[in-house]
């Protein structure tokens, strides 16, 4: 039963949306959209499980005074503060969780705007620096393919900025050609291959041939 039930559930969860794709019968479509809703509900409960895990792990870290335990205190404090203002705000305490009608921020909104968003922006901004160091390391003319890659990268990088057009109108034209023809062709090839691979994997999962994600071992 431990093996059969998850496999049966997987089969129905996979087969019903495929059936609904071809059969417009109202009730099939309804089951399919209901499954989508169930996924959101299950994910919500799984989030609770995740939060419990975070609290447990960090509490243990503080208890054992493992390496970096002060940061665990900061993490738990952050979780508690945002969680408290979020819960309270959902019951309209402190004016809710969004900006108040008069334009002032509720505590949750303030923490989101002036704490969370700048931190998120900082991490995203790191990409610029990492891209520079990765480009410096990667774009070396070691062989023929690498040389073609190097020239394509230089043309596109130069063509996407105004300086490129100032130097020659061919840079933006060449850039659009590279993006619109060989790059697009390569992307299409990878997308088609990946789609077939995904379809094959999905078929194996639906039919119960692929079971390793359930931790059930051999695919017999």
């Amino acid at each position: 039963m431990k093996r059969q039930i998850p496999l049966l559930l997987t089969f129905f969860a996979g087969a019903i949306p495929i059936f609904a794709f071809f059969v417009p019968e109202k009730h099939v479509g309804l089951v399919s959209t209901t499954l989508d809703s169930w996924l959101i509900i299950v994910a919500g409960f799984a989030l609770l499980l995740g939060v419990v895990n975070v609290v447990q792990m960090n509490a243990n870290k503080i208890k054992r005074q493992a390496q970096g335990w002060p940061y665990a205190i900061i993490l738990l404090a952050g979780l508690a503060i945002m969680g408290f203002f979020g819960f309270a705000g959902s019951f309209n305490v402190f004016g809710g969780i969004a900006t108040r009608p008069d334009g002032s921020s509720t505590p949750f909104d303030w923490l989101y705007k002036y704490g969370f968003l700048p931190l998120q922006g900082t991490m995203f901004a790191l990409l610029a620096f990492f891209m520079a160091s990765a480009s410096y390391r990667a774009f070396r003319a070691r062989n023929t393919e690498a040389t073609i890659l190097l020239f394509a990268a230089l043309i596109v990088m130069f063509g996407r900025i105004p300086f490129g057009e100032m130097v020659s109108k061919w840079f933006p034209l060449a850039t659009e050609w590279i993006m619109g023809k060989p790059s697009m062709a390569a992307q299409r090839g990878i997308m088609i291959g990946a789609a077939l691979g995904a379809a094959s994997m999905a078929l194996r999962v639906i039919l119960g041939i692929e079971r390793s994600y359930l931790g059930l071992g051999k695919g017999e």
Partner: protein
Amino acid sequence: MRNSVHLAKRFSVCWLCLTLVLMLSSARVQGQTAQTEPAGNSIPEPAPPVAGAVTASDTKSDEGGSITVKWTEPAGSKEMGLEYEVLRSDKQDGAYVPVGELSAGDSEYADTGLTDGQAYYYKVRSILGAVSADSEPSQAAFSKGNFFRFYRLNALVLLAVFSSAVLYYITRARKAKPIYIRKIAGLDAVDEAVGRATEMGKKMLYIPGIMSVDEIQTIASLAILGHIAKLSATYNADLEVPNKDPLTFAAARETVKEAYLEAGRPDLFREEMVNYVTYDQFAYTASVTGKMVRERPATNFLIGSFYAESLLLAETGQAIGAIQISGTAEVAQLPFFVVACDYTLIGEELYAASAYLSREPVLLGSIKGQDITKFLLIVALGLGVVLESIGIKFMATAFKMQ
């Protein structure tokens, strides 16, 4: 003589009157352009041409409640700037209400939200500026639900061909000789990567992507995680799996636990090996990159669905000198992995990994079936290019997906 003069006078008077009438008429016409004429005195605008052959029938391949109205456009409708309004009534000679507006060039309208089995009649009103003209009403039309979306028949055929190929080779795989699969360097390097971590006494970090288990890449990643966890149990290497998604976290924990059990080392499994970090993409990235910099794992596996954080993770791993094996089907992130990682599984190689690593004949058979379908698609693509070039649009129509 007297008669002639009389006649001449009469003629002159008539001629004068006629001239006066003509002059007054022309003044009136000119006056119309300079001042507003009262209503009823202007020359009426001609009525626009009427839409012809209005037919209404049940919309095909839907779940009911919809009728498609078609009509023939009058000649020159686009040049005229004609517009159409579709009108509906439940009686042929009853009151018609507007249900849709279209411009010239459109000659089909699908009316929705109807009751199945009830009769509906349609007219098409042609509108040109302020004037309009209605067509003859259509015959009665009834909507009903259909059991199959015929416009997706081509998708069903493709699905049938694909599934048949995969299932055929899966069935054959057990009886036939071992199926050849080409070398995938990234997967061959897994053993070496695990061994490296064991020798160095450092941990391995496995990042299963940032999407949930409803994403097929995550399932493929969990399959690979199972294999790596088994190796880790065998070699007694330290493995950590930080997760961004709670469902993936739950599935990953079960996968690793079962793998350790299967390897005969359940005692080595610790729950904190697989942990949940946070749902936010960049907070998760900050946590994992911080872990990489502090704990300096010997091996990083970045396998699954990634977005903007891919370069942050891969480049940090590269900076600390870890051996990195990555794999994703996200086309936009592949270049970052290729640049920063030692091995990258591209697209379908990720999905083939579980078959490749386990060498199960059944799984290898499915890869062969998938490859046969790809070959057929390549043939269709080539044929399509040739046919399109000579003006035969059959392939484009055959593969059109709705």
